[in-house]
């Protein structure tokens, strides 16, 4: 274990350490199963990066490789211009928050938050000062003498975050930290975490399967699917301009509608009997895609048969049938329609997206 | 030190230990059983099985196992289900029921000797009730049935606890929802026991039975304390060959016979109580 060079420990983050993370050509197998496939990603200093994907997409494995809890088969991880993939977790300048909190049950909240500081053999006063400051930040200063068994899930979550922040790390890694909380608490913690992390100016990688969480917190989202990063960009961009059909179908609730389109030449496409302007390519067939909320009733448009109407308060979620396929629209709740009716719906032209049916990539 | 080698470093001591004191001795025992000084022979086996006491001790051992293990299984299942539905007092009752777990077979034999010996509590009670006027010598060759009963009772008393512990742990692993679902579908408590507890308990039942059956074939000290030479069993014969007859080959041969019976029964139990792949909890 010879040489260690703790990086930025104790330094005030944002003052002099530039904690840019570079992930180069990372690959990982579990037996025959390819968990990660040639991952390349750069996360800027102080950026809040969310890894988003369904379970089993490799997002947690990638996070654990960055943390040093898992070893990659190939590739490199760099933090702040220093290669770290051969170092043990303690020497990487990272702190981590775990899904089930991992608050040590045999230690008080104070000793939990101060655990990492004690391992650095810091003086008692320094530990006390930093523990108290972080506890205040996370609003748990009244819990310092308690044990984990006496805390609620939300309080344990706060202890886990405080323990990571107290380290003043270069990078904070969070593995689905809010997924064990109930819906209301999750919303509250989401906003609070975002505030605290922005204030601490720490580079953050945050793993979640919850797209709302990803959208609301991230500077950038990396959407992962089957062991690779499909798209890495801002939340709005991911939503508006999905790079692949998977991203389009995974993000957004209700999901995007897809209808086959046949080329009519000169950038004209026939979609369910209706003509639309689209990309001018040699490809004979594409997929037409539109989000349910970008559809409105009109005189001319796609003719659909209403099957189910679900009132959601401000809107109606209307599930229709179009040429044997499902088609969803989010419509105004004042609209008077009944199941079985045939109506005409027009997509908002600038929100229409096109995907290649073979490669599933977006076509512009 | 790489993490790749760490697990091997950690299991090395146990592996070494078991090779040295478990696998190697068994090779030696086999060697000893099949040799008399000049090459491979079955002479030791002929010797011991030809002895007039061998059929008796084999019969005694098997009969004891056949009498004791089923009773223990039934009793342990009964106790485990009783404890399962218990509210307060569960810890105390479980403690009392598991006390025999820590008691050696020798001590158990001595404890039951206190009851069955001539001036013991059974005679005292019977004379107190006026059934007999003089203490009868119960544990002699005229009462082989009584000796058998005393040994069986002592074994049931002592070794039901280990089955109980395994079964209670096993029942604890069965999710409560299954019982609730069965109850909703109208299953009576008896049906629930038959259709849910028993099938889902198969792994625990198999562990408990294997452990108990093997220990039943090793029965020794209880017998020594209660029956002495009046009731020969296989393990006692092994001891006698080793020490009284100073015939190591004979002792090894009987040891291998016990081993053979144990393995046969282990395989049989595991086969009977096998859980199909994918049908585990």
């Amino acid at each position: 274990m010879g040489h260690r060079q703790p990086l930025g420990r104790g330094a005030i983050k944002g003052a002099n350490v530039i904690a840019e993370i570079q992930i180069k050509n990372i690959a990982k197998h579990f037996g025959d199963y390819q968990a990660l496939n040639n991952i390349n990603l750069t996360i800027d200093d102080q950026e809040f990066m969310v890894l988003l994907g369904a379970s089993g997409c490799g997002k947690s494995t990638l996070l654990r490789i960055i943390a040093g809890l898992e070893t990659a088969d190939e590739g490199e991880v760099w933090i702040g211009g220093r290669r770290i993939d051969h170092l043990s977790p303690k020497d990487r300048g990272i702190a981590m928050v775990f899904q089930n909190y991992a608050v040590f049950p045999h230690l008080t909240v104070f000793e939990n938050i101060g655990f990492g500081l004690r391992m650095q053999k810091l003086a008692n006063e320094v530990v006390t000062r930093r523990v108290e400051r972080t506890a205040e930040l996370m609003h748990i200063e009244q819990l310092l003498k308690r044990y984990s068994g006496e805390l609620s899930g939300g309080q344990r979550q706060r202890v886990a975050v405080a323990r990571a922040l107290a380290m003043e790390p270069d990078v904070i890694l969070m593995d689905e930290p809010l997924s064990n909380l109930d819906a209301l608490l999750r919303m509250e913690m989401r906003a609070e975490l975002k505030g605290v992390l922005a204030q601490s100016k720490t580079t953050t990688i945050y793993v979640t399967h919850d797209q709302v969480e990803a959208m609301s917190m991230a500077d950038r989202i990396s959407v992962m699917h089957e062991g690779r990063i499909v798209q890495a960009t801002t939340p709005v961009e991911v939503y508006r301009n999905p790079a692949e059909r998977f991203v389009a179908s995974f993000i957004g609730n209700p999901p995007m509608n897809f209808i086959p389109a046949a080329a009519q030449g000169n950038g004209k496409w026939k979609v369910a009997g209706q003509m639309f302007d689209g990309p001018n390519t040699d490809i004979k067939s594409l997929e037409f895609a539109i989000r349910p909320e970008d559809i409105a009733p009109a005189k001319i448009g796609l003719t659909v048969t209403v099957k189910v109407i679900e009132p959601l308060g401000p809107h109606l979620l209307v599930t229709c049938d179009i040429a044997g396929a499902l088609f969803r629209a989010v419509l105004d709740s004042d609209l008077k329609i009944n199941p079985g009716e045939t109506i005409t719906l027009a997509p908002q032209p600038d929100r229409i997206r096109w995907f290649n049916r073979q490669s599933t990539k977006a076509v512009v | 030190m790489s993490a790749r080698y760490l697990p091997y470093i950690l299991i090395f001591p146990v592996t070494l230990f078991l090779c040295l004191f478990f696998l190697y001795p068994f090779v030696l025992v086999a060697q000893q059983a099949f040799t008399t000084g000049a090459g491979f022979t079955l002479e030791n086996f002929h010797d011991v099985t030809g002895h007039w006491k061998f059929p008796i001790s084999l019969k005694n051992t098997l009969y004891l196992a056949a009498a004791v293990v089923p009773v223990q299984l039934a009793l342990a299942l009964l106790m485990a289900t009783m404890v399962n539905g218990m509210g307060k007092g569960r810890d105390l009752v479980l403690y009392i029921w598991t006390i025999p777990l820590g008691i050696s077979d020798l001590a158990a034999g001595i404890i039951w000797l206190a009851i069955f010996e001539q001036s013991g509590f059974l005679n005292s009670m019977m004379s107190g009730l006026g059934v007999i006027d003089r203490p009868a010598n119960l544990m002699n060759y005229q009462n082989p049935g009584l000796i058998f009963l005393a040994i069986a009772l002592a074994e049931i008393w002592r070794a039901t606890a280990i089955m109980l512990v395994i079964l209670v742990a096993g029942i604890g692993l069965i999710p409560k929802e299954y019982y609730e679902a069965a109850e909703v579908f109208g299953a009576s408590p008896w049906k629930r026991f038959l259709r849910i507890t028993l099938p889902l308990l198969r792994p625990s039942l198999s562990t408990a039975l294997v452990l108990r059956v093997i220990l039943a074939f090793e029965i020794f000290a209880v017998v020594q304390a209660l029956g002495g030479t009046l009731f020969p069993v296989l393990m006692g014969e092994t001891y006698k060959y080793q020490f009284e007859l100073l015939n190591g080959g004979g002792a090894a041969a009987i040891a291998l016979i016990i081993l053979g019976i144990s393995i046969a029964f282990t395989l049989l139990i595991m086969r009977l109580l096998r859980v199909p792949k994918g049908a585990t909890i």
Partner: protein
Amino acid sequence: MTIASPEVSADTRKSGRYVYIASVILLCAWVIVPLYFLLINTLSSPEAVNSFPKSFVPDFDLGSLTFFANFAGMLSALKNSILVAGLTMIMSITIGAPAGYALSRFDFPGKGLFRFLILLTRAFPLPLLALPLAVMFIRTGLDDSIFGLALVHTTLAIPFAVLITFSLFSGIPIELEEAAWTLGCNRLTAFQKVILPLVLPGITASAIFAFVISWNEVFAAAVLTIENRTLTAFLLQNLDTSPLHLKFAGGFILVVPALIFIFAVRKYLFAMWGIANR
């Protein structure tokens, strides 16, 4: 399903409840009464033990126990028993616990084989090992020694030590250890600071279990010791010749630690077997 009238079903339920309570008490008595008889015999004078009919209350005479203590070789046998059991306890835990940890934390080629080896020991009548080992020990000078017997008892206790510690370590989420690593610990310090404090009570329980296994073992002890008899071996050897009050006092001394030990480990008994089953 038939629908019984409320009173009938309430009545049967009540009587069922009485049957249930009565059976629980009966089964408790089944365990305790024989122990009580042993206690009476131990706390009676040798004369009372050999007299007839027996009293069903002890006369609190320490005569039998004094006789036991003064019987030649008995106290040294007691000492030997404690030493062997203590050694067994230490060896089986220090050797077994690392393997239990490895089984709970790592996936490695050969893991299945190793588990099979451990489980194999359970399918074999282990005390029989004493026979060839007796020969082996004479060659190595371990015969009739405390250490030699402790080695055999450790072989008996090790499968349990491995499986019990395996279940203990498995009960501790790996995240706790990983959290410690990210907070500045290496494997060793994380084990010291986080895992050890959490498993220590369980480890103690399994150590006690190993102690009891050795303390109670009769056959190997009788085969492997001649001069340095343990208590069980000594009692066995003198079963034919020793008077009743000596047997009962000896039996009592054998039982007492068992009572205390089972009480000490009662919390872990079922958790230990829960995983050890698989």
